[in-house]
């Protein structure tokens, strides 16, 4: 019977079609559920993208009723929904939200959850798929996985699937990531494991592949013959507001941002063309990039190629800011970096000799995540000019905010003399497409429900990224002489040592 296809479904071919399912959110009383997950599901409902008879169950420790949880979610949705809040739609959507109270380590709680899900299936008249979303603190992952396995929830009912979505951070080093992967692998198949990196849900990140492989003009130039350097910047103008210091001080910029988000962006820029757009074909190529990163080993190599720093007191956007070590919930003797700059090399035929510079930091002058691809200086004849950085072509992918792409090129200044000036061609999503892009979580939730793992990290990607990061962390925490912890005033573009990193190569950071 289930082999019969719905003959009316063909009109929906261009969108990912979520399969009928129940989503269970662990850590449902947390910020992520309120600000991102429920609004994302609501917006999917508004677009008609949720499967019929959809249910979402919040799983957490606090005592709440279904009705109480729905009311909380409704208030959050009013504040956070991308498309606003419609009472008629909420009246229907809200009814699909349920709450299940349990401790994460209480097997009976999971048995109760299983009973609840079975009741939903009974109401539906058929078993449905199950998607478990781990939005809880990472220290509970082990327990949740164990309990899902013990209760049998890791297997879908009646041949249906059961999948798990894991929020970052996925481990804090290679050892813990491997351990988590083992735990997850004991519970779910790799094909049913979705490690989320919300950067990949962003429109411009997805557009990197389209730009590279759907435009014939770029790919022939996308190599060390024409590209001189690549810079990836992820700047934040915030510090440790809202009690973030507690978590951040245990992680730092390298673990919190570089291992996941920035390496994902690097992979998209540097990867070879995939043989197809299937999840594994794309991820095979991405993981090759991470594997090809030249590892920095030992204090000397790390000192030479990686700069870590903490902000000191300064001002951002006209407001006074305290130094990192004076932030709430941060250890006053902390050796955690709020800024990191790296010089990387992807040791492949395509990228031999091309440096990839990365910088990420807190309390920088503005919020911006951008990738800039700097092309080599053209031959000087017939325009014999001094080698000025400003005369090179630069292709920029703006990931956030103001998503778009720009290309800097040279143009003749009007006048009788042959003078040149760089001009910028700028494509902005908001200007060209009036329609707002879906939130990253909408796309990613829909993909997880539809079984498309392309925009999720695979086990080997995560472990290879941690293997690279671990070498740096080990050098930073080595006995004896360590690479220095540099400083930069809040509101500046980072420590002078990061500028020197590029100056050694005759380069400067791109002005944002």
């Amino acid at each position, binding site marked *: 019977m289930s082999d019969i296809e719905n003959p009316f479904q063909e009109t929906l071919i261009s969108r990912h079609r979520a399969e009928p399912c129940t989503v269970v959110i662990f850590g449902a009383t947390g910020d992520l559920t309120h600000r991102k997950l429920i609004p994302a599901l609501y917006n999917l409902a508004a677009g008609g993208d949720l499967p019929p*008879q959809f249910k979402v169950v919040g799983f957490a420790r606090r005592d709440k009723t279904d009705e109480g949880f729905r009311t909380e979610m409704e208030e959050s949705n009013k504040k956070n929904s991308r498309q606003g809040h419609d009472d008629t739609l909420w009246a229907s959507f809200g009814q699909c939200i349920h709450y299940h109270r349990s401790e994460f380590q209480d097997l009976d709680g999971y048995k109760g959850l299983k009973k609840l899900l079975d009741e939903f299936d009974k109401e539906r008249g058929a078993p449905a798929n199950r998607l478990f979303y781990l939005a809880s603190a990472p220290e509970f992952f082990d327990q949740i996985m164990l309990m899902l396995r013990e209760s049998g929830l890791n297997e879908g009912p009646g041949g249906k699937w059961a999948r798990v979505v894991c929020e970052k951070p996925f481990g804090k080093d290679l050892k813990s990531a491997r351990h988590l992967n083992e735990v997850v692998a004991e519970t779910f198949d790799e094909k049913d494991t979705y490690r989320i990196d919300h950067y990949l849900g962003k429109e411009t990140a997805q557009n990197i592949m389209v730009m590279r492989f759907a435009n014939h003009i770029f790919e022939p130039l996308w190599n060390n013959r024409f590209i001189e350097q690549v810079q990836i910047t992820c700047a934040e103008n915030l510090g440790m507001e809202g009690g973030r210091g507690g978590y951040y001080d245990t992680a730092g910029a390298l673990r919190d941002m570089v291992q996941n988000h920035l390496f994902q962006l690097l992979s998209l820029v540097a990867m070879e063309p995939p043989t197809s757009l299937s999840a594994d074909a794309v991820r095979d190529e991405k993981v090759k990039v991470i594997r090809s990163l030249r590892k920095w080993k030992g204090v000397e190599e790390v000192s030479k190629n990686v700069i870590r720093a903490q902000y000191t007191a300064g001002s951002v956007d006209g407001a006074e800011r305290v130094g990192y070590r004076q932030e709430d919930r941060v250890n006053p003797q902390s050796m955690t970096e709020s800024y990191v700059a790296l010089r990387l090399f992807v040791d492949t035929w395509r990228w031999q000799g091309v440096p990839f510079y990365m910088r990420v930091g807190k309390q920088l002058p503005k919020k911006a995540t951008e990738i800039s691809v700097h092309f080599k200086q053209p031959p000087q004849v017939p325009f014999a000019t001094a080698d000025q950085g400003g005369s090179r072509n630069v292709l920029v992918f703006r990931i956030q905010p103001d998503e778009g792409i720009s290309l800097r090129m040279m143009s003749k200044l009007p006048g009788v003399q042959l003078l040149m000036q760089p001009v910028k061609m700028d494509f902005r999503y*908001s200007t060209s497409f009036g329609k707002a892009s879906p939130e990253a979580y909408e796309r990613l939730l829909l993909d997880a429900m539809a079984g498309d793992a392309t925009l999720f990290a695979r086990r080997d990607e995560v472990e290879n990224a941690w293997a690279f990061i671990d070498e740096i962390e080990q050098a930073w925490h080595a006995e004896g002489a360590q690479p220095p912890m540099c400083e930069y005033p809040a509101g500046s573009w980072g420590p002078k040592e990061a500028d020197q990193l590029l100056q050694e190569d005759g380069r400067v950071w791109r002005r944002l």
Partner: protein
Amino acid sequence: MPSLESNLSVLGQEVPLGKVDKALKELWGADEARDKASLMNFAIYCENPESLVNNTQLLADITKEHACRGLLILNQPNGETPPKTRAWVTAHCQLLDGRKSVCSEQVSFLLEGGTGNQVRNTVFAHLDSDLPLVFWWQGDLTVNFDERLYSVIDLLFVDSSSWSDPKGDFGKLLNAHCQDAARFHVYDLSWLRSHYFRTALASCFNDPLALAELHKLNRIQITHGPGHRVAALLLAAWVGVRLKATVKGSTLVLPEGQVIKIDVKEGKDTEPLQAVELASDTASFGVDRACGSSYVCASVNMPDHSHEQILPADLPTDAALIANLLSRLGRKSLYVQMVPMLQELLAADA
């Protein structure tokens, strides 16, 4: 009723035909706070002088989501007087982040006298180069809808609900579409008006129990608004094509011989499509739209199982329908596959 001349004021600044490009350049040079954006040429062709104001508003609405060069062409052929063309330029601007305006330009043409065949040249001469041409032909497909014109169109919109002779115009459309020179994809607003209805009806059959009822269906009832019978018949044709049925009178006959009676009736509300129900003797699958609502209710009623789901309803305006379609371009349309069965239903409906 306002005269044509008084309506012309909505078109902006009148300029000599040969100086349209210069006028556009001056339009953009006048204010540095404006960004011009264009992803396509979007032309609206009409022969009804009363539609000028409405069409200018339609272009303004479409440009909110799809930056384009808008071309508005009002053709008033009259073989007794020599051809004369007048032109206007204006811009539709949207505020971006509360500071900068993002603008799309509109060039309007009034073609008077002659045989009307100056349409082609007028369109060809004022396209934004390298960008696709989306062409909305309003009203009946007249002699001006000829090969020289449609061969440059990438995407053609028509509205069969406005056709005075649907059978004849569907014939012309299919004939044009199968010509070698034609490379356009065609979208009919009557078809687009049922997009979310079809999606909702499809969602009723997502589970195996519902699918098992497909072979027991024996009637389909569709309720439509005044003037939208073609949209209802297109929906019936879609059901027929998807079930691989043939038309016999006012019934669909499935390959296994099962007969589904088609009942299309006009409702009291104004929404183009108001309800559809597919039913067997024991089950029913329906989509209902309450008047004025932005949502439809898809319901499944089977002996041991029933449920309802709220889903988005079809968009209320022509501009919204087109803007939505332009947002999901690349999707293969089933529309052309529906037209032959629709023609049979129209013949049975006569």
